[in-house]
Structures are given as C-alpha cells and as structure tokens.
C-alpha cells in the first residue's frame, strides 16, 4: 500500500495515517463531507464507534485517552458536526487531554461561500485547541496528520483539530508517511534544569513543613510511581487537585486528600501553614487557591511543570523547573540517593497534620433518606475501588472526589477545568471501549445525565456494560447549594419539576434500569447493578437539600472553610 508509485485518495491516505499512528478506535458520526472516509471505513479493520451526538464523540475519545494514555480520535462531518464538537474540544483543552478531531469541510472551492454545512471550524476552535489545521492540499495531508498526533501527545498534551475539505479527501497522491518530524517552532522541554533541581532538592530536604501539591500533570506524564516513591522517601505529605486524584495513593498515610474549595480540612490547613509548597504538574487554579494573597502565605514555592505559562501565572514561584514532571522527579530521586534524609525533623509537622485530621474529617449526617455520600461510599466498598469512575459535574463530582478513594492513576474521568455537564457518560463509554472487561461507572446527577442521555443507544449498540449511577435530588444540586448559601435561598430555576422515569428510560433504550428510594435498598441495587453485564442505570433518589462540605466560598482564603 505504501509504495511510492501507487496513488491513494485523501480518504485512503487518512486511514493509512491512522494505522501508522496505531489508532485502534475512532469515535465518530458520518455526514456529507466525510462520506469518502466512511466509504473506506466500511471495510477497514479500524474500529468505529457510532455515537449519537458529536459532543459525545469527543468526550468518548477524551475518556479513552485518559484511561489509556493514548491519543483519542474523533471523526465528524462539516458544519454542525464540527460545531457540536466544540464543548468536547474545550473540555479536553482545559484538562490537557490528547485528542485529535478530524472534521469534514466543504470543498476548498466553496470555503468562505456560506456553502451548505459550512462552518469556519478552524476559526471557531482556535482558542480551544492546542493547535489546528485546515488541509488545503492532499499533498500536505499525511504530514499534517503526523504533526497533529505529535502535537496532541507531546509537551503539555491537548486537543488538535484537522479540518478536511471534501475535495482534498477525494484527490489522489502518492502516500508517504514521514518517519520523523521536526518543527522549528515547537520543541517542548522535557529535562528539567539540573541546577534548579539541585536548589529545589536542598529546599525540600531542609523544609520543616513541606507539602506536595500534585495535579493532573503527574497523571499525564505517568509519574505516579515516581511521585509516590519520592514523597515516601522524603516523608512529605501530598495533597492533590481534582485532576490529580490517583496520582498519589489516596489511602497512603501521607495523603491529605483533595485541596481547595471542597478540599479536606487538613489539606487546606496544611497548605496554609506550610513553609514549602511543592507544586507538581498543577496550575494554581482559582478553585484550588481561593484568595491568592492568602494561599500558602508563608511558603517558598517550587513549581515543576512542562508548560512555562503555568509557572508564575497566578502565584510568584521561587524555584521554577520547566520539564516533564516524571523526568524531574526521577532526577530528584537520583540526587536523594546520594543524600542522607533525616525524616525526624518532619515529625512535628506530621503531628500537626494529624491534629487537623482529628479535628475535622469528611462526614455527613445520617438520615431516613438516601444520602448521596453514602451511595458513593458503598460503591467504593463494593468495588474495592477496582474500577474506572467517570463523573458529571457539580455535587456528584465533588462527592465522588471526597468519598471515593483513588489509589491508582487514570481511574477518574472528570471535567475539572471546563466543568462540562454531560461529560461523564460518554467519557465512560470511551473508557469501556478501551477496557471492555473493567467495571466502568459514571456517577451522575439528574441534571448532568440528561445532557448526553442519548448515548444510552451507543452503549447498548456496542454492548458496553457502563454503569450509570444517578444521584437524583430533583434539582441542580450545586446551583441550589450556592443559591442557599449566597442568594438568600432564592432557588431560581434550579429545581426540575419533571423528570423522565429513568428506569423506564433505560429499558426503552434496551438497557437495565434499577432504582433505590430508601437507604436499605442502596446496597442491593449497587450489587445488582455491578453484576449486570449490560448497560445499566442505577437511580438513587437522594435527599434534595444535601450540600457538599466542607466548602470555601469563591474567592475566600482556603483556611476559612464552611465545615459541617
């Protein structure tokens, strides 16, 4: 096929390229301008998952990428097909997830002509992709695809969109896939500066009250093992961001849990009182820092990150180290082995943290109604944590972060940066496609699940046994909570007066529907749901007024927590 004399069409070149990139699955939706590709997909060996909405195609590819560490791939048509991907792309962009989206485009002759199903998707997605391309000539196609995959997965990963005009897909050229690419304008730094690393190590060894603040970058660079060894060797407690959950074992005694707006008391207190903050693959998001002036006020800050723009963006950093965090931690570990570590001088600090832990731990009040936290605790207990968990956005997401212990990376799929409702279910589909034999659970609210509920059809068609847990409080719980706390309990448009019958809805799609309305039914429903080898909805009718606590009001100092 790859001979220099044989001419292939753009559509064939496209599929050849995907094979060279070892793409195993495409999440897509056909339409006029990509019909040539679909014509060749008809008898290609590559797997294609037909979603029911293009947004879900991107979320599924994103979920696939998060659990596998590979690049997720989508294929959609021009115009509305392309614009429907925007939320998915922006979601992947905020969380630095490697996804390549291929969109059809009207023939180059018609571009700019307001042609049928034309949208300037390159213009539209420019600010929410890592990079994007409009392929104007079939001669560029293979090189552009190679570059797109390279950019998506290298450096700080992210989504790349490649727009494919119909005439480019139909034109022919000899196929040549470049072995290597060098881009004069894009050369990510992987190795950290040795002198900075040595300086950082000196601080880390000497600090009396250090805290590691680990983010999603640790997971993206596959540095969890190194981070764990490192933290244990130096006896430094670790707090993680939402995106960093699983980067360090949640059940390790050094783990402080999540920090920030809905973080644990001990994590927020530890950060507020630490003398050295070691940020690793994290970006000082406002949901983490609260009031920047009062965030780690007396600490020196070390920041390891592959993206220089993340460093000193929100907070002044004393020792910046640009590079791949895995490389950097490995370098730190070789330096440690040459040094004697005195663990004793941390004893006081760890005792102080223990005291915070005793003063306040995550808790909720029991009730005659089902408590959403209880459902999540039970899921953790019954799965022993051995599953992939996707969440939607809002209270369901925060309770999952708080009450489910993540001991391993790439087990939590959640839209941390953009906060995309409707993300979890399609992401869970992507994860299940990647790992057909693993238990994959989407923890949803009754609001979020309805934002991509149509994907039940996809899950059923491909016999994906995704477990959907709906914590049904009949309202937009997080909106309701903010209205309760900050808007005089004026519950403006946050209550759903009607809902479909989720059990019947599941059945209508050919899935299984289960429901629990009382606490004593919870365990039974989860057990049945987990034992079901089909797509299943487990609906839990939970207490409407339940809030997520502790909570730091937006913009406040993170040690000023509303506790329960």
């Amino acid at each position, binding site marked *: 096929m790859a001979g220099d004399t044989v001419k292939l069409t753009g559509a064939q070149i496209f599929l050849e390229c995907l094979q060279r990139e070892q793409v195993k699955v495409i999440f897509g939706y056909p339409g006029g301008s990509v019909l040539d590709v679909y014509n060749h997909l008809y008898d290609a060996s590559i797997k294609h998952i037909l979603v029911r909405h293009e947004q879900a195609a991107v979320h599924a590819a994103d979920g696939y990428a998060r659990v596998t560490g590979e690049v997720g791939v989508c294929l959609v048509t021009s115009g509305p097909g392309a614009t429907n991907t925007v939320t998915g792309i922006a979601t992947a962009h905020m969380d630095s997830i490697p996804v390549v989206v291929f969109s059809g485009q009207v023939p180059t002759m018609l571009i700019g002509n307001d042609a049928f199903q034309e949208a300037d998707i*390159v*213009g539209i997605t*420019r*600010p929410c992709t*890592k*990079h994007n391309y*409009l392929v104007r000539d079939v001669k560029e196609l293979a090189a552009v695809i190679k570059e797109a995959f390279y*950019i998506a997965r290298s450096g700080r990963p992210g989504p790349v969109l490649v727009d494919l005009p119909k005439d480019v897909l139909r034109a022919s050229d000899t196929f040549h896939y470049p072995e290597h690419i060098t*881009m*004069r*304008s*894009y050369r990510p730094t992987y190795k950290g500066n040795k002198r900075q690393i040595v300086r950082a190590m000196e601080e880390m060894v000497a600090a009396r009250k250090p805290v590691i603040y680990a983010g999603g970058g640790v997971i993206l660079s596959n540095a969890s093992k190194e981070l764990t060894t490192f933290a244990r060797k130096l006896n430094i407690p670790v707090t993680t961001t939402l995106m960093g959950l699983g980067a360090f074992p949640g059940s390790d005694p050094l783990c402080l849990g999540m920090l920030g707006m809905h973080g644990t008391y001990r994590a927020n207190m530890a950060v507020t009182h630490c003398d050295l903050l070691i940020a690793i693959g994290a970006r000082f998001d406002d949901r983490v820092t609260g009031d920047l002036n009062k965030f780690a006020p007396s600490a020196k800050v070390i920041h390891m990150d592959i*993206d*220089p*723009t993340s460093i*000193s*963006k929100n907070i*002044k950093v004393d020792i910046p180290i640009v590079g791949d965090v895995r490389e950097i931690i490995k370098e730190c570990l070789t330096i440690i082995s040459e040094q004697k570590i005195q663990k004793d001088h941390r004893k006081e600090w760890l005792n102080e943290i223990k005291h915070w832990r005793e003063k306040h731990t995550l808790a909720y009040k029991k009730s005659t109604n089902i408590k959403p936290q209880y459902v999540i605790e039970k899921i953790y207990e019954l799965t022993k944590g051995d599953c992939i968990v996707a969440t939607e956005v809002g209270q369901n997401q925060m309770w999952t972060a708080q009450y489910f212990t993540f001991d391993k990376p790439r087990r939590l799929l959640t839209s941390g940066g953009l906060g995309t409702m409707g993300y979890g279910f399609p992401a869970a589909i992507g994860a299940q496609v990647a790992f057909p034999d693993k238990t994959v659970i989407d923890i949803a609210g009754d609001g979020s699940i309805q934002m991509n509920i149509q994907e039940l059809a996809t899950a059923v068609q491909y016999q994906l046994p995704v477990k959907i847990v709906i914590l049904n409080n009949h309202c937009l719980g997080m909106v309701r909570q903010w209205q309760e706390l900050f808007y005089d309990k004026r519950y403006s448009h946050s209550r759903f007066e009607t809902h479909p019958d989720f059990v019947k809805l599941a059945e209508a799609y050919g899935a299984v529907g289960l429901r629990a309305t009382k606490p004593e039914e919870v365990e039974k429903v989860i057990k049945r749901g987990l034992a079901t080898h089909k797509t299943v909805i487990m609906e839990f009718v939970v207490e409407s007024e339940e809030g997520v606590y502790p909570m730091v009001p937006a913009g406040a100092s993170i040690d000023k927590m509303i506790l329960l």
Partner: protein
Amino acid sequence: MRHTISVLVDNKPGVLARVAGLFSGRGFNIECLSVNETLDPTVSQMTLVTRGDDQLIEQIIKQLNKLIDVIKVVDLENGDYVGREMALIKVSVENTKRSEVLSIVDIFRGKVVDISPSFYTIEVTGDEAKIRAIVELFKPIGIKEIARTGKVALTRESKERKA
C-alpha cells in the same frame, strides 16, 4: 510599562489570527502591530507594542512562545533597539502655508511625496514622539487625512548588549 516585542512566526495562513486571538482571549492589550515577511519567505516578523507590569509581560511572552507557529519571541525592552514608525500626512496648503509646511518637513527630515493645488502629502518616519510632534505642528495648519504604520524595530548591534 510599554514593551516592544518582536515575534518571528511561521508565514502561514491564520497565524496573525492566532496571535491576535491570544491577546484578545487573555485580555492582553496590543497598542500597535506590524507584520511582514522576512528574508526567509517562510518566516514573518511581527513587531507589537503592548503594556503591562513585569509579570504580565512575562506571561505574554510565554503565551506567545506557546503558540505552535511562533518561532522566537524577543522582548526588545531587555536591550537597546531601534524602533521606527512611518506616517503619511495630507496637509492643507491653501493660501500662503506652503513655505511653513515645507520648513516643518525639512526640520523633521520628512519628504513631500505628493502635491496637488491644495494639499501636500508628507512622508515622515521616526519614533512615536517625533510622529506625534509633527502631527501636532500640522494640526493648526489643517490635516485632511493621516495614515500611520505600526512600529517596526530591530535590536542594536552593540558589544555591551546582554544576551
């Protein structure tokens, strides 16, 4: 503080949109901008003037560098540089103003590039202050139209220049 930043970019469609989009999307401000091809036709040079404190400028430079099409970013404020703008000014020369206009042009080392019975079109180059000064002098005489370029700039070759 004002900073003049020189940006070398791949000469490809959409690059200007990426740079402009970066500035608008992140709330940075562009005071002026000029773009042109360099000796290497695959590379364009942008010179842009922006304003901000050190932290903001650092962020602007990092964000520019992060764009895939950007090859090199230099903050010219870190050393000596020559910066020039050009203006074309159409000045009313009715009645007896001609000699007055010509003497101003002369003092500013400008050029008259077009003449009609009632107007002179004057070309003048210099730094921003010089352009502003000549504009102020022509105002009372009567400016019909004015067209100005953004700043273009190059670093000075000097031994003391810091790397």
